């Protein structure tokens, strides 16, 4: 895979643009994961789940 930063790939993105999109996806996944951890912690406290 070439590392030419100006090459436009078949999806119409450059390497920098693709990595920027990916960083936003990773951030969103972290936020989603944090919210789900809190939700499951509350579910563990207030329901018989896993007791």
């Amino acid at each position, binding site marked *: 895979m070439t590392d030419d930063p100006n090459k436009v790939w*078949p*999806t119409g993105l450059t*390497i920098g643009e*693709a*990595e920027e*999109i*990916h960083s936003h996806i990773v951030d969103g996944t972290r936020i*989603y994961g944090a919210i789900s951890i809190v939700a499951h912690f509350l579910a563990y406290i207030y*329901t018989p789940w896993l007791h």
Partner: protein
Amino acid sequence: MIYGRMWLVIKPGIGIPMGAVAIMGTSLAVHTCILTHTTWFPAFLQGGVKAQHAAVETGKVAAAPQPPIAVASAK
């Protein structure tokens, strides 16, 4: 990070919705199974069960709802 380069060959307009739908579908399936295979999850979602149990245990059962005045006094 090498994984960001996947968007060079997968269009984000296709890949991101596919990933989101996969996550939502999996989550929905798991929670639906819990809802249909347990007794406490439907009761938890129904709400008010803990308050009813507490009232019964203490002998303080809530009074039955009264009919509207217009209906109660009508003859």
